[in-house]
């Protein structure tokens, strides 16, 4: 298992152990090196993360006994990435994927691939590993040709060996002893022909699931190191609360309490056993006296207040403004703050020993967290190691990095003892960075040809990326006596964008103008939540497409196709519509249908969804009855993995869309648990969710994880409108809102 061993190996150890790989030389590797050295400035860009980590042995290492280790800077978040990465490596090395060892994100062992985020892991890491594996195979085949004295073309590869036509063979282990994988990758690789795939495209069972089903330690939450002790933090009751006083004497004497840590308004306790830490932290919370002042907007007027804040206005599609009146229609859509809400609160283990600080963390970015913790603790970066271990579900920047910072501060306070800290439920709900509140207005005009001639879209949003890097992005760092200031937020540039992600419609309109109103003031803490602004923007655009289709008296699916030329967009739309039975659908009683489409980030996976919703007339309560979706995320390495993530995206987005909003008063966050922030429960499940994967063998990987979020929201709103005439433009689509707008 990845890096769980407390006495884990360092990068230096790895290099030393790989000595066999880096001493000897071969014609083939010399040729590769020479090629790389001749015209470095003219070299074409390397594929995926090879751009930033170009050495083959950063990704693939083969030991003398033939055992193969694959390295990735990405982390398993429950999305199944480990399995997919092992599949691409196994395909190119022509071995059984079960024969591989995979090491994931660890600053002491793996390449720096920044964050496991943005549905980028397949593009970045799978692409790099695949090309590296193919180049390693070619290198070994070249060596085998020399060794066996036959032409490389006549050799076959399989099960970790290269074979000559006469049956003689050389194993990878034997061959690697004669070469050096510490060479720069080339831009072109002899990738396997999709027609011959043995492993790619197969729905292999995920390698991370079996231990999860039987209670084998795999999560950082389950890590137990010798001598480990437990900590809890007493967070301020509101963002700006100051610690007036706290008398710790009685807590100091509680059984098991080892240390109370107080640094400014940062207050924590370390105890022998976990529940002793919980009890002591509760006692401290009762004793602490805080000074608080109202600093949050009035919840009744928060959207208006938000839109009135100063904004940086960035025109991201340059068409002329759409004038009001004369056939123009417009609407405003709103999305509240929403949480990640991982079922297990954030957790980390820290150990400060022999001047080295090691943090076991479920952060999405071990290298950026390493830098942030080095800044926070004033240790040199080389003295800090961050090792990823799995955590509870990760849907963006949650409390994981902050818990890593807690573990760092508390481990430094108790050198030599591993310190485990887990957040309580209320802490996670109150302190994790939310998905930003958003507002958008859209105005459009229909041309005489039944197509949209003018479209103007304005979106107001906070930042969607406030991750570490800087220590000032770690909540614990704000509370120290010498606090770290939060850096000024910056808008993320197009084409991927942040609040303006997917704000430019993929549809072809006569004129399109889109303005991103970036609001720097952040009354509530925000950062990256699955799909960033795309969730709201696709909800708004795809809701409005249905509204305009209604004006045009057009079928919503046909109306979308009217404005789309992209053949892969048309394919997912047709597939979802056909499998749903869109053409022959009859609206009955309380039921209606809805459709939506988006290409995530306008440059990644294509996704379309059709759904049927039932609305209770008495209460206005909507229920998703069934959903049928189609997704094209390029070459499908593990189709069931794509289905699993997409089903999850649909159900999570359904939960956001029907139920979820952070609540607050002018001083404090008030949604602090699952009763004040309800989410989907089993009794509200749809009858079926059917995800159809459109596989594109040989095409680039596009990523899957976030494609469903926005379209699902809009398809639900469109189905509710179809069933009841209620066009709800404010999220979530609560029974009260639906009932208030019902017309049929």
């Amino acid at each position, binding site marked *: 298992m990845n890096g769980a061993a407390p006495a884990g190996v360092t990068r230096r150890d790895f290099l030393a152990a790989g000595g066999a790989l880096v001493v000897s030389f071969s014609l083939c590797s010399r040729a590769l090196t020479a090629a790389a050295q001749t015209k470095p400035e003219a070299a074409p860009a390397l594929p995926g993360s090879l751009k930033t980590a170009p050495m083959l042995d950063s990704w693939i290492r083969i030991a003398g006994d033939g055992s193969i280790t694959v390295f990735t800077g990405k982390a398993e978040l429950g999305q199944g990435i480990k399995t997919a990465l092992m599949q691409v490596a196994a395909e190119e090395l022509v071995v059984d994927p079960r024969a591989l060892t995979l090491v994931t994100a660890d600053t002491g062992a793996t390449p720096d691939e920044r964050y496991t985020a943005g549905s980028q892991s397949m593009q970045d890491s799978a692409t790099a590993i695949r090309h590296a594996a193919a180049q390693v195979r070619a290198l070994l085949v070249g060596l085998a040709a020399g060794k066996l004295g036959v032409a490389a073309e006549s050799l076959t590869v399989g099960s970790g060996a290269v074979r000559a036509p006469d049956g003689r063979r050389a194993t990878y282990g034997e061959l690697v002893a004669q070469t050096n994988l510490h060479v720069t990758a080339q831009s072109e690789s002899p990738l396997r022909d999709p027609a011959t795939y043995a492993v790619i495209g197969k729905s292999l069972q995920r390698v991370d699931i079996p231990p999860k089903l039987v*209670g084998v330690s795999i999560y950082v939450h389950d890590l137990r190191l010798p001598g480990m002790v437990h900590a809890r933090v007493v967070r301020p009751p509101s963002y700006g609360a100051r610690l007036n006083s706290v008398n710790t004497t009685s807590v100091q004497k509680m059984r098991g309490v080892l240390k109370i840590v107080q640094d400014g308004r940062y207050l924590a306790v370390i105890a022998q056993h976990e529940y002793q830490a919980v009890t002591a932290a509760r006692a401290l919370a009762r004793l602490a006296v805080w000074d608080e002042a109202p600093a949050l907007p009035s919840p009744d007027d928060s959207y208006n207040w938000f839109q009135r804040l100063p904004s940086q206005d960035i025109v991201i599609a340059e068409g002329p403004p759409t004038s009001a009146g004369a056939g123009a229609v417009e609407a405003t859509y709103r999305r509240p703050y929403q949480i990640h809400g991982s079922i*297990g609160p954030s957790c980390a283990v820290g150990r400060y020993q022999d001047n080295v600080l090691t943090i076991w963390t479920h952060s999405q970015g071990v290298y950026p967290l390493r830098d942030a913790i080095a800044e926070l603790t004033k240790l040199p970066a080389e003295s800090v190691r961050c090792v990823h271990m799995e955590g509870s579900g990760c849907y963006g920047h949650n409390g994981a990095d902050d818990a890593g910072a807690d573990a760092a501060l508390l481990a430094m306070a108790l050198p030599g003892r591993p310190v485990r800290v887990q957040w309580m439920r209320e802490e996670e709900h109150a302190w994790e960075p939310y998905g930003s509140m958003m507002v958008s207005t859209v105005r459009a005009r229909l041309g005489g040809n039944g197509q949209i001639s003018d479209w103007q879209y304005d979106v107001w949003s906070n930042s969607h990326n406030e991750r570490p890097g800087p220590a000032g992005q770690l909540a614990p760092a704000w509370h120290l006596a010498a606090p770290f200031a939060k850096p000024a937020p910056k808008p993320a540039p197009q084409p991927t964008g942040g609040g303006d992600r997917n704000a430019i419609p993929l549809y072809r309109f006569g004129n399109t103008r889109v303005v991103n109103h970036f609001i720097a003031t952040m009354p509530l803490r925000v950062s990256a939540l699955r799909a960033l602004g795309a969730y709201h923007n696709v909800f708004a655009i795809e809701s409005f497409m249905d509204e305009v289709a209604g004006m045009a008296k057009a079928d919503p699916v046909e109306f979308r196709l009217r404005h789309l030329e992209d053949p892969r967009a048309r394919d997912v739309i047709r597939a979802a519509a056909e499998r749903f039975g869109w053409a022959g659908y009859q609206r009955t009683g309380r039921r209606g249908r809805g459709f939506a489409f988006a290409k995530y980030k306008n440059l990644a996976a294509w996704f379309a969804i059709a759904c049927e919703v039932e609305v209770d007339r008495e209460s206005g309560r909507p229920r998703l009855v069934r959903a049928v979706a189609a997704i094209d995320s390029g070459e499908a390495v593990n189709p069931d993995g794509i289905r699993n993530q997409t089903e999850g995206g649909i159900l999570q987005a359904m939960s956001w869309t029907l139920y979820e909003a952070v609540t607050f008063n002018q001083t404090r966050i008030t949604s602090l648990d699952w009763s004040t922030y309800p989410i989907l429960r089993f009794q509200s499940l749809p009858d079926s969710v059917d995800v159809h994967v459109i596989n594109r063998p040989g095409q680039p990987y596009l990523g899957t994880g976030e494609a469903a979020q926005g379209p699902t929201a809009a398809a639900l709103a469109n189905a509710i409108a179809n069933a009841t005439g209620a066009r709800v433009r404010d999220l979530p689509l609560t029974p009260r809102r639906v009932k208030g707008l019902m017309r049929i």
Partner: protein
Amino acid sequence: MISINVNGRTVQVDAEPDTPLLYVLRDHLELNGAKFGCGLGQCGSCTVLLENQPVFSCLIPISTLGARRVRTLESLGTADKPGPVQRAFLEEQAAQCGYCIPGMIMRAQALLERNPSPSRREILRHMSPNLCRCGTHMRIVAAVERAARLITARAKTEAET
């Protein structure tokens, strides 16, 4: 010292009497199955069986257990020899992050011990105390249905032999 019965063994635990069972399972007995989720009985990730009933182990002080038997995920099987519910979850690939899954398995186990062929509606109602955030619900329900078939088929084979 407090004596409790976990997975068929009686163990002595040196913990304060008000310590919730969850912390004793994890911290003292080093069992990973039951997970901390909320500490409030709202999410079910800490679900274990207490004399055949699914309970929130985060809410039960160990001093109230007496001789009643506690069963955790670890009692159902191992990676090499999974129990029928674990096997069904594997075959349905019913996990994403998997953090809620031990609680799901234990709650499903309680249902299937009482009623080996529940209807879908019964499954939904029975599983409702447990939360999943990854949206794996459809696969979890499919896994419970598959487990029911596995258990029923096994009972039939045993009855015939």
